C-alpha cells in the first residue's frame, strides 16, 4: 500500500506492550493511572463518558493516501459508530472506541502505515503544514517533503515520547505563515535566499494557551539542510530545561520565560553546536508527485466527517491518484491534483453529492471551535453549539456574505483550543454573574495577524452574552461585507474601521434589563438545563474556572483584612470546591463540604478545628490561624495539576505490601533535590539494616541523583520503575 511516512521499526513491539498493559489492567494487575501513563502517549484519550476512548492518528501535514484513507474508514467503521473528526493539527480522531479495541485499531493501522504514537502526552505531536503546500500558485516552495521526512525522524527517536510536555512543530510554505509556524513550539517558514537556495526562517517557543507567545525568530534564513539539526536541538533544549514538575509551566515558551530571551537563545545555540558535531544524516526528502495544481477545498463543518461523506469524498479523490487528499488546519478536506479542465465538473459533482453548495457562507464552515463544555471537562460554554447557532442564524435569514477568507474561532474557555487568538473575529467563553446567577458569556477578540515578522494575537475588545452572539455577528458581518475592500486583509480592515464598528455594535447588546426579561440568557445554546459552571468541570485541558477560584481567594483576602473572619472561612473553603464539581446551595455549606472533601485528604487535619469552630457557630477565630488556613489552601491550589487534582497528603503509614511483607512507604514527589535525598536518608535511619523502604521520586534530576547517592551511602537500590512522570524506587537499608 502506498503510504506517506515510514513507521519506526519498534512500533509493533510497542503496540504489543500496550496491548499487554490493557490485559493487565483488565485483570486488575495494574491500576488506571499506570495504564493511562502509557495510553495517552499512544494517542488514546479517555472521553468524558468513562470507558469510552478517542484515538488520534498521526497524519503529517494532513497528507494521507487514498488507499490509506479507504482502509482507515473501514477500520473505524468496525469499531465505532461515530463520525470521524478532523483536528486543527490535521489529524484524524476516532471517537467512542472501547479500550480493548484501541490496541486492535493500532495493529490494523500499522498495516496501512499509520500510527497513533505521539497523538497525546508529552511527545512530539503531529507536524503540521500549510493547507495549500505544493498546490498554491504563489508559495515559496512545497514544504510537504520536510514535514514528512522530519516526522519519520522524530518518531524514530525514543526521546520524542518522554519530553516535559507536548512539542509542536509546524511548517509554512510562505511568509503568510498559513501553517502557523510563528505560534508553534518550533516553526519553519519557507524562504529562498538571494543565491536561490532553499531554506527557512525559524521560530521557536511560540504557542497558545496559558501565557501565549509568538515564537521568537532564531534564524532569519537557514539552509533547508539544517531542518533536522534545528529540530533536534530544540527538542534537546526542551528535554533538558523544560519544567517537568509543573505541567502548567512546562511548554517550551516557559523555558524562554524562565531563562530570558538572551540566555534561551544562547542555550539553543549551545545545543545546536553539539548536534551539528554529531553529523546526523540529512533528512531523506521524497518528492510527492503532483501533476496538477488544481484543488478543491471541501469545508467540513466543525471537522466532523460522517462515514457517508468520507466515502463520497474518497470516490472523487481516487480518480486523481494516491496523493490527492489532505486535511487542513481549518479542519477541512482538500482534494488536489485535479486537472484544471476537470475542476468545474468535479465541483458540480460535489455539489450534487451535497458536499459543497452552490453559494454559501464558507467562513462558517471554515470556522474553528474547540470541543467546548459538552465534551471537554474544563469548558465553560458550549462553543460548538454557539457555532451551530451562528450558522443557523445565517441560514434562517438566508444571509449570504462574500467573506470567504474570514476566520472565525471560538473557544469555550480562556484556553486557546479553538485558536481564538488567531481569529479575525473570535470568542472565548466565561461565566458572568448577573443578578446573582451565572450567564454564559464570551469575550470578543479580533484583529489577529499571522505572518513572518507580523504575527500578532487577536485583542480582547469586549464581552457579550452567548445568546446575543449570532445577532451581533450578523450585524457586524453585514457591515464588513459592504465596507471591507476587496483584497484588503482582515487585520487591515480591523485597524482601519472594523474595530470601531465592533465597539459600536457591542453597545447595542449591553442593555442589562434584557437579563431580567429574557430567561434564555441563562441557558447556553441548545441546552435545556440552566447554565451552571459547576456540573461541567472536571478537567482535561484547563483554566476558565481559575477566574472563579482567584475571585474567591481575593474575597477571602479582603475579608481577612476587614477582620470578617467567618466570611473569610466561607470563601477560603469555597474556592476549591468547584474543582470537585460540587454544587453549593448556600455559602455556609462550603466549610462543611470543604471538610468532607479536602481535610485529611489534601489539607492537614489540624485545620478541621477552624471548620468545627465555624459549624458550632462559636466562630472565635483568630486572624493568624485564618491567615495560615488561607495560605495553606492557596498553596494547595498552586499545586493543582491540569486535571484539577491535588496532591494527596503524604501517607506515611506502613501501607505497601509486597509479598506479604510490610514496607515503609514515602512519597517524595514534588520534593526538590537534594531535599528528597535528605528525607529518604532520614527515613532510612529509622529502620533496621536489611529492611526495605519504597519511595516515589520525580523524573529528571531526582531519579538521576537520589538512587546513586543512596548507593553511595551503602544502601541497596533494589528496583526503580517509571510510572507516568515519576518513579517508584525500592531501597534496602545497607548500613
Amino acid at each position: 500500500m502506498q503510504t506517506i511516512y515510514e513507521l519506526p521499526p519498534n512500533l509493533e513491539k510497542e503496540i504489543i506492550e500496550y496491548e499487554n498493559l490493557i490485559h493487565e489492567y483488565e485483570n486488575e494487575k495494574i491500576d488506571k493511572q499506570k495504564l493511562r501513563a502509557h495510553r495517552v502517549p499512544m494517542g488514546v484519550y479517555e472521553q468524558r463518558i468513562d470507558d469510552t476512548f478517542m484515538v488520534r492518528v498521526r497524519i503529517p501535514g494532513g497528507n494521507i493516501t487514498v488507499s490509506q484513507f479507504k482502509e482507515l474508514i473501514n477500520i473505524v467503521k468496525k469499531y465505532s459508530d461515530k463520525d470521524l473528526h478532523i483536528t486543527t493539527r490535521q489529524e484524524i480522531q476516532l471517537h467512542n472506541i472501547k479500550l480493548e479495541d484501541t490496541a486492535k485499531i493500532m495493529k490494523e493501522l500499522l498495516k496501512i502505515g499509520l500510527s497513533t504514537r505521539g497523538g497525546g502526552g508529552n511527545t512530539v505531536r503531529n507536524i503540521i503544514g500549510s493547507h495549500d503546500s505544493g498546490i498554491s500558485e504563489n508559495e515559496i516552495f512545497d514544504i510537504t517533503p520536510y514535514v514528512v521526512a522530519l516526522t519519520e525522524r522524530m518518531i524514530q527517536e525514543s526521546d520524542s515520547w518522554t519530553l516535559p510536555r507536548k512539542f509542536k512543530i509546524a511548517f509554512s510554505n510562505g511568509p503568510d505563515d498559513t501553517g502557523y509556524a510563528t505560534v508553534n513550539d518550533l516553526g519553519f517558514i519557507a524562504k529562498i535566499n538571494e543565491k536561490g537556495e532553499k531554506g527557512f526562517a525559524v521560530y521557536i517557543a511560540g504557542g497558545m494557551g496559558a501565557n501565549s507567545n509568538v515564537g521568537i525568530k532564531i534564524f532569519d534564513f537557514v539552509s533547508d539542510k539544517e531542518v533536522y539539526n534545528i529540530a533536534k536541538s530544540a527538542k534537546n533544549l526542551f528535554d533538558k530545561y523544560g519544567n517537568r514538575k509543573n505541567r502548567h509551566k512546562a511548554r517550551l515558551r516557559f523555558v524562554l520565560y524562565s531563562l530570558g530571551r538572551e540566555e534561551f537563545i544562547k542555550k539553543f545555540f549551545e545545543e545546536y553546536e553539539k548536534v551539528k558535531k554529531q553529523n546526523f544524516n540529512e533528512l531523506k526528502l521524497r518528492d510527492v508527485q503532483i501533476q496538477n495544481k488544481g484543488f478543491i477545498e471541501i469545508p467540513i463543518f466543525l471537522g466532523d466527517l460522517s462515514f457517508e461523506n468520507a466515502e463520497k469524498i474518497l470516490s472523487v479523490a481516487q480518480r486523481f491518484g494516491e496523493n490527492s487528499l489532505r486535511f487542513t488546519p481549518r479542519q477541512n478536506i482538500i482534494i488536489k491534483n485535479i486537472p484544471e479542465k476537470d475542476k468545474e465538473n468535479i465541483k458540480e459533482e460535489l455539489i450534487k453529492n451535497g458536499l459543497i453548495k452552490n453559494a454559501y457562507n464558507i467562513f462558517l464552515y471554515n470556522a474553528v471551535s474547540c470541543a467546548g463544555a459538552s465534551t471537554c471537562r474544563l469548558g465553560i460554554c458550549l462553543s460548538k453549539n454557539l457555532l451551530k447557532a451562528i450558522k443557523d442564524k445565517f441560514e434562517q435569514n438566508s444571509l449570504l456574505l462574500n467573506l470567504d477568507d474570514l476566520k472565525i474561532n471560538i473557544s469555550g474557555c480562556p484556553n486557546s483550543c479553538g485558536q481564538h487568538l488567531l481569529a479575525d473575529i473570535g470568542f472565548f467563553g466565561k461565566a458572568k454573574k448577573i443578578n446573582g446567577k451565572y450567564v454564559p458569556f464570551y469575550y470578543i477578540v479580533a484583529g489577529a495577524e499571522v505572518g513572518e515578522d507580523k504575527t500578532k494575537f487577536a485583542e480582547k475588545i469586549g464581552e457579550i452574552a452567548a445568546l446575543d452572539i449570532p445577532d451581533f455577528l450578523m450585524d457586524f458581518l453585514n457591515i464588513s461585507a459592504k465596507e471591507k475592500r476587496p483584497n484588503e486583509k482582515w487585520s487591515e480592515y480591523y485597524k482601519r474601521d472594523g474595530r470601531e464598528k465592533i465597539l459600536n455594535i457591542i453597545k447595542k447588546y449591553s442593555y442589562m434589563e434584557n437579563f431580567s426579561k429574557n430567561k434564555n440568557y441563562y441557558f447556553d445554546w441548545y441546552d435545556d438545563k440552566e447554565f451552571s459552571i459547576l456540573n461541567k468541570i472536571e478537567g482535561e485541558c484547563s483554566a476558565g474556572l481559575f477566574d472563579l477560584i482567584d475571585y474567591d481567594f481575593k474575597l477571602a483576602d479582603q475579608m481577612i483584612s476587614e477582620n470578617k473572619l467567618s466570611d473569610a472561612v466561607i470563601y477560603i473553603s469555597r474556592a476549591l470546591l468547584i474543582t470537585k464539581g460540587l454544587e453549593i446551595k448556600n455559602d455556609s455549606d462550603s466549610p462543611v463540604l470543604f471538610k468532607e472533601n479536602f481535610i485529611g485528604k489534601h489539607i492537614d487535619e489540624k485545620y478541621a478545628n477552624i471548620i468545627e469552630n465555624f459549624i458550632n457557630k462559636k466562630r472565635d477565630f483568630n486572624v493568624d490561624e485564618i491567615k495560615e488556613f488561607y495560605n495553606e489552601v492557596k498553596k494547595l491550589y498552586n499545586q493543582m495539576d491540569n486535571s484539577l487534582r491535588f496532591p494527596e497528603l503524604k501517607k506515611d503509614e506502613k501501607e505497601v505490601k509486597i509479598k506479604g511483607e510490610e514496607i515503609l512507604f514515602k512519597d517524595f514527589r514534588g520534593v526538590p533535590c537534594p531535599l528528597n535525598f535528605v528525607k529518604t536518608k532520614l527515613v532510612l535511619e529509622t529502620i533496621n539494616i536489611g529492611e526495605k523502604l519504597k519511595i516515589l521520586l520525580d523524573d529528571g534530576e531526582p531519579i538521576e541523583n537520589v538512587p546513586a547517592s543512596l548507593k553511595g551511602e551503602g544502601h541497596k537500590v533494589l528496583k526503580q520503575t517509571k510510572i507516568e512522570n515519576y518513579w517508584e524506587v525500592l531501597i534496602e537499608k545497607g548500613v
Partner: protein
Amino acid sequence: MILDDNDILRYSRQIILKEVGGKGQEKLFNAKVLIVGAGGLGSPAGLYLAASGIGTVGIIDGDNVDLTNLQRQIIHFSSDLNKAKVESAEEKIKAINPKINVIKYKERLNAENIASTIKDFDFIIDGTDNFPAKFLINDACVLLKKPFSHAGILRFDGQTFTHIPGGACYRCIFPELPPKGVIPSCSEAGILGPVAGIIGSVQALETIKFILGIGNLLINRLFIMNAFEMNFRIVNFKKNKECPICGENPSIKEIKEYEQPVCELKRN
C-alpha cells in the same frame, strides 16, 4: 527531638553528609557548648554553632560592646555599642536560629565561678584574649575532665588545638605563664579580623566534630597559621610527663587564678 520539616530544610546541607545524618543532627541539638569570651574568636564560633543547630550555647563575657571591637567581633553590630556582649551575642544567635537555647553569664570567668559554670557543658571554647584566662580554663577543664578548644591569635598568627581528657593539655607545651616582658605590648598587639574569623571557625568545626564523634580532632596536634605568608601547618606534640597539671606528678591540684601582667601603655 524530632526534626520538623523546617529543621530538615534548615539543616539539609549537613544532614546530607553521610557522617551527620538525622542522628548527628540530633546529637547537635542535645549538645551544650560554652563559649568563653564573645570576642574575635567567640563571634564566628558562636554564629556557626548556632547556625548548625547546637541546642544550648552558653556565653560568658563581662564586657560591653566597644567601638574598637567591631572590626573583628562580628557577632556585634554598630547598633549594639555599649550593650553587654552577652546580650548582643544572644540576639544574633536567636536571629540566626530561634530554636537555640542561650545561657548568658555577664561576668568574667574566675577561679571561684569556673567550676560551677563549666560543669554542665559538654565542650568549652576558649575565646579569651589573655594568658591568665587561658591557663585558668586549661586547669579547670583538665581537673574537671572537660574537653575544650584552645586558641590564641595575634597579628597575622593564630593557633589552636583541642583537648580531651587524657590528651595533651596547654601546660604540656607551656607549663607556666610567660614572663611579663615576653607578652606583646599593645602597640604590637594588632590583629586582622579574618585571622580571628579563621581560628574561631576552626574551633567551631572542632566542636561540631567532637559532638558528632567524627573525623580527626586536633588532639596532640597544634594547628598553626601564618596568614601573612598564608602558611598553615600542624605541629604534633605529646602529653608531657612533667606537665604540672596532667603529668605523672602534678603540682597543680586546685583551680587558681594567676596574675595578669598589665600592659605598660595602658597603665599610663
